């Protein structure tokens, strides 16, 4: 009897040891990966790096101003499109559960979440690039498609968590429906929606595949959204595979900036969700 308890306890201890070992043995290398990228990148970043465009191949110096500006513009445009559409579609889903349209829309959102990013890229190529040429705008459309499902789901889930009494009280006071939604429901769920938006931006800002055949790339600083534009992930892809050490350095620097962007946005989301105690 005692011996069996002993065996069972040892088994339990061994199992715990194994779990702890596996959990930490994989987390440590993952952290080392992050630190390595930060270490390689932080040495490259300085004012010159942020304000200059890449030098011609084989020449020293240069920076990633074109990619930085390009990423901000492309992602900015995607947000302008995806945020209103996403929030409104999310409101529809949370307000009309059980209707046929809501079912199919929900299905489409799930489908979109599963579509590989490269497929979005080639589809947008046929929609916009083939008739109109490579442009930052077509890249933004591709990223919008990636961004929509996240914003919609975040909005829907947040609004479903709100107590129905909130809406009922407002409606019973005679407030019109759209004002109830826009001035009562959405502000109450604001934190959740906002964190969904930030999360979606963090997700798409690192997407390369949809931009390969849409925004293409640009060696110059460009503000024209109807023309090709460089972006941070694309410049990393181009320079990562190049044989020049200078260009590797640029790519490390760009990786660092992109990584900081993404980590910052994620931490902001964490702070928001913790403050308002939201489960996404």
């Amino acid at each position, binding site marked *: 009897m005692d011996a069996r308890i002993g065996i069972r306890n040892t088994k339990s201890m061994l199992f715990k040891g194994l779990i702890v070992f596996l959990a930490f043995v994989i987390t440590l290398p993952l952290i080392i990966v992050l630190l390595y990228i930060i270490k390689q990148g932080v040495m490259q970043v300085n004012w010159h790096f942020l304000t200059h465009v890449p030098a011609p*191949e*084989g020449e020293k110096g240069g920076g990633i101003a074109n990619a930085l500006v390009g990423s901000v513009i492309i992602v900015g*445009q995607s947000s302008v499109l995806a945020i*209103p559409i996403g929030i409104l579609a999310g409101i529809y889903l949370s307000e009309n559960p059980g209707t046929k349209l809501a079912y199919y829309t929900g299905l489409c959102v799930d489908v979109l979440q599963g579509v590989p990013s490269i497929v979005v890229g080639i589809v947008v190529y046929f929609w916009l*690039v083939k008739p109109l040429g490579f442009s930052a705008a077509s890249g933004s459309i591709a990223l919008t498609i990636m961004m929509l499902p996240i914003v919609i789901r975040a909005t829907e889930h947040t609004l479903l968590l709100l107590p129905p009494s909130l809406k009922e009280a407002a409606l019973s006071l005679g407030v019109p429906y759209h004002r109830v939604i826009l*001035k009562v429901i959405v502000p109450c769920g604001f934190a959740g929606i*906002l964190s969904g938006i930030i999360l979606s931006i963090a997700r798409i800002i690192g997407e390369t595949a949809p931009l390969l055949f849409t925004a*293409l790339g640009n*060696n110059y600083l460009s503000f024209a959204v109807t023309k090709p534009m460089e972006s941070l992930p694309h410049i990393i892809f181009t320079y990562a595979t*190049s044989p020049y050490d200078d260009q590797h350095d640029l790519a490390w620097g760009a990786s660092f900036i992109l990584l900081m962007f993404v980590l910052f946005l994620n931490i902001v989301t964490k702070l928001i969700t913790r403050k308002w105690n939201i489960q996404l």
Partner: protein
Amino acid sequence: MKTIKSLKLAIAAIAGICITLSASAQDNTLLGAGSTFVYPLFSKIFAEYGKTHDVKVNYQSIGSGGGILQLTNKTVDFGGSDAPLNADQAKKIGVPVLHIPMASGAVVVTYNIPGVTTALNLTGKDIADIYLGKLTNWNSPQIAGTNKGVKLPDLPIVVVHRSEGSGTSYIFTDFLTKVNPDWASKVGKASAVNWPAGLGGKGSEGVAGLVKQTPGAIGYVELIYALQNKMLYAHIQNKSGKFITPSLASTTLASNVELPANAEVSLTNTDNPAGYPISSFTWALIYKEQKYNDRSAAKAKMVLELLWYNIHEGQKNCEPLNYAPLSKSAVKVAEKILKSATYDGKPIL
């Protein structure tokens, strides 16, 4: 309430910025895409051109195959290619396309063998056998035969080729097809072939990167990539049986041929006894009729002026980057081709 308002404001501000930015941007940009072979030269020339002219030329090195396809789809202003259009491609485009020679360059066979620091002598057959997967180890007697005194290690050969359609591949396979009947029957020449062995690197950069990283690797890249990366490259046996060092001089010798009026000519396996056998012209491709997709006459003129600059002032950038500049007669031919370009039926230059 406040937060909603600020969100609205932020969205409006972003939208506003986007609109003003796109409105303020002038149309002084040209878009080119294609050959990675010519990319170092183009990026240098275009940077110089941008200093004296108010034109920004965005050239993306996506491979010659991509350059031709994007020109066909009319998504770029000009394409760059190291291979002239083949019959299929010409048929698909349907309208005349001008091939303007920009420079000539050498494709070198580069390798990374630990312990070997001298240039190897390779014959066309050696290279073909390696790329066919018949020679798989560096210590093979076939390679040792032409490399007396070099101690070749017992190391598997890692074959590296281009992963995408590429003019460099075209030049390389064109040479192998001419010198090796086995290669000609099994693989043939094209910008993208069904490689019997090895791994693909994306772009000349990718191939150079892979060779540099991988012990035992062999690859082929444009001379400039090998030089700038301080990689070793082989001496290649030419038609007269001599092993030729790829260089500016030996490339120039190979490119010194009578150009036909359309400038589409292959330079590989040259007859010149001191010429390097794997060299080629690289071309810029534009439509002969520049009025398509409601392009403005000004834009057409911009493209033509840029290419005019390339074959004249731009040529001074060739030698520092180890491209062979166009010969006088080649420039004459190129001028004639450029002058034949029209806008709405009228000559542009």
